[in-house]
């Protein structure tokens, strides 16, 4: 047993250590490599060209078509085709094609593929979402993905962590999305570059897994390699249906997972104490995710489109919160509103509990699960000069369509904004 006090990321890196090719670089083994149809086909093509079309472990490769689904043109159809053929060729079991597919960072946790202590990569920057389970999960480029598929390893800088302790109590109408937006506003888009953000504190302890995923999802918007939350009873409860045969009871699972909890006295490059007691709903106002201010300071900002969905905020809890605000009310004549449940399971549950009907009755368009609109690919692209109130994670210039403006916000704020046609605090629309 090492005597050095370690962060969560340090423990995971020690556990997965393969090589130290340079003083500050660690090559680690991977428990899972997630793949989607945008960044994987080029990796497959390169492996084929090199005569190395193999996978390190078919059971550790999880594949989804999610970014443009259904395919919108011949090119996206081809990306899907390449992925399907590759999956068949290598007999990869866990593949989610249209009808069973969902946004990657929603469906993979939902299927139980993420566990505390895991090291995971994907060719997608929001892979940091999975840190919510106490895993080290990082977005990588196609070459890292390619080597991950082939060898089951990836190289990272020796991890340094920032401790973000979130304390106080959230006001009604203030959510995980507001917390992470405010934090990014505080530390900037470069505030955590090359570091892991380790979230802790009472507010995080009280969060559900859906909320922790929202929190970790946007860690990369502050430059972080991964967001990470220590595994606890909430994690065990979420995972229990997948792990119940491996442990005699939840306490035993918790004990095992707590091996990856941070040590008291571990080294952090920074410790940020963030008291959220006075936090109001937050919204972005520019083209960078750190341009954030309270909704109350936005003034009259008219919107053309509302989008509720994505790997940040397309989960069941998000949809429930938004539905509770729009239920029995009509969206403004001046807006169009789109909701995309992030997975078929979320969609199906939302039908069962009636919230899909609530959305439709209020004037929302309900679309299938896909990343589509968030990155301006399909299902809700903006025209030049249009403004979108969005529950997604990036407000970059042109992101949802050239010349479009994106304001990032929580599902509650987006729902309230749909009712008024301008950015609106949900406190004026308590549940009916």
């Amino acid at each position: 047993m090492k005597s050095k006090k370690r962060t969560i990321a340090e423990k995971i890196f020690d556990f997965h250590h393969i090589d130290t090719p340079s003083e500050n670089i660690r090559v680690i083994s991977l428990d899972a490599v997630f793949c989607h149809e945008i960044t994987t086909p080029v990796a497959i093509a390169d492996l084929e060209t090199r005569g190395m079309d193999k996978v390190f472990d078919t059971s550790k490769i999880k594949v989804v078509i999610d970014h443009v689904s259904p395919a919108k043109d011949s090119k996206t159809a081809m990306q899907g085709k390449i992925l399907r053929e590759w999956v068949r060729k290598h007999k990869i079991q866990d593949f989610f094609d249209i009808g069973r597919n969902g946004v990657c960072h929603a469906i993979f946790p939902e299927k139980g593929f993420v566990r505390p202590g895991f090291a995971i990569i994907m060719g997608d920057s929001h892979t940091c979402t999975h840190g919510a389970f106490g895993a080290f999960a990082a977005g990588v480029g196609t070459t890292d993905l390619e080597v991950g598929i082939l060898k089951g390893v990836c190289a990272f800088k020796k991890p340094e962590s920032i401790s973000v302790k979130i304390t106080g109590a959230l006001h009604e109408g203030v959510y995980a999305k507001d917390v992470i937006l405010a934090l990014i506003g505080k530390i900037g888009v470069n505030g955590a570059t090359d570091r892991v953000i380790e979230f802790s504190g009472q507010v995080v302890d009280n969060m559900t897994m859906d909320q922790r995923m929202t929190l970790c999802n946007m860690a990369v918007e502050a430059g972080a390699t991964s967001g990470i939350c220590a595994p606890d009873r909430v994690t065990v409860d979420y995972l229990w249906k997948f792990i119940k045969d491996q442990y005699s009871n939840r306490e035993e699972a918790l004990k095992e997972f707590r091996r990856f909890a941070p040590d008291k006295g571990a080294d952090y490059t920074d410790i940020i104490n963030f008291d959220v007691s006075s936090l109001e709903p937050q919204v972005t106002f520019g083209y960078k995710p750190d341009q954030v201010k309270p909704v109350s300071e936005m003034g009259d900002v008219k919107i053309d489109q509302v989008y509720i969905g994505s790997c940040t905020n397309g989960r069941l809890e998000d949809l429930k919160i938004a539905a509770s605000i729009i239920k029995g009310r009509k969206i403004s004549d001046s807006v169009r509103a789109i909701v995309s449940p992030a997975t078929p399971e979320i969609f199906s549950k939302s039908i069962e509990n009636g919230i899909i009907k609530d959305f439709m009755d209020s004037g929302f368009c309900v679309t299938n699960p896909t990343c589509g609109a968030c990155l301006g690919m399909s299902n809700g692209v903006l025209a030049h000069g249009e403004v979108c109130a969005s529950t997604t994670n990036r407000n970059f210039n042109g992101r949802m369509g050239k010349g479009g403006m994106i304001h990032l916000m929580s599902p509650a704020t987006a729902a309230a904004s749909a009712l008024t046609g301008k950015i609106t605090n949900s406190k004026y629309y308590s549940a009916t």
Partner: protein
Amino acid sequence: MKNFTGKVLFLDKSDINTDEIIPAKYLTEITKKALKPYLLEDLVLDGFNAENDIKGKSVIITRDNFGCGSSREHAPWALEMNGFNLVIASGFARIFRQNMFNCGMMAVQLEEKIIDRIFNNCAGKETLVQTDLDSKIFAISTDDFSEEISFNISNFDFALVKAGGWVAYADQKY
């Protein structure tokens, strides 16, 4: 090994993101070559015109947090297809930086004050960067100015550049 010497494109802005380097709508392309015409298409920067300013250049010098945002390796590929194998900046987003070295390209960080000095001395003039990789020195010159600047990359980064990228390196070692 790739070429790391050539004329400089100055981009005087921090936080240039991957959507600005190559917009997401082009991610449906499945060859690197197809990305060539779209490099920096959505970059809004005073005085910058992608059509005129990219041609003939092969080194980018820019400010902080270059390449933030998406993990898309299409960003380095779009650079590579336009002849850029070297970006020098006061800082990089992690994934972009790693993607560059993984492709056998270089993303080299210099201190902010050195980047400031280069901008002050060279921006707006025809500038050449000559790279001596083994000595880790950039020779930066214009008509009336020249300076040698030493840089630092890890042994691992150096090995990736020599090997031509991470796939070749990892295939030998793991």
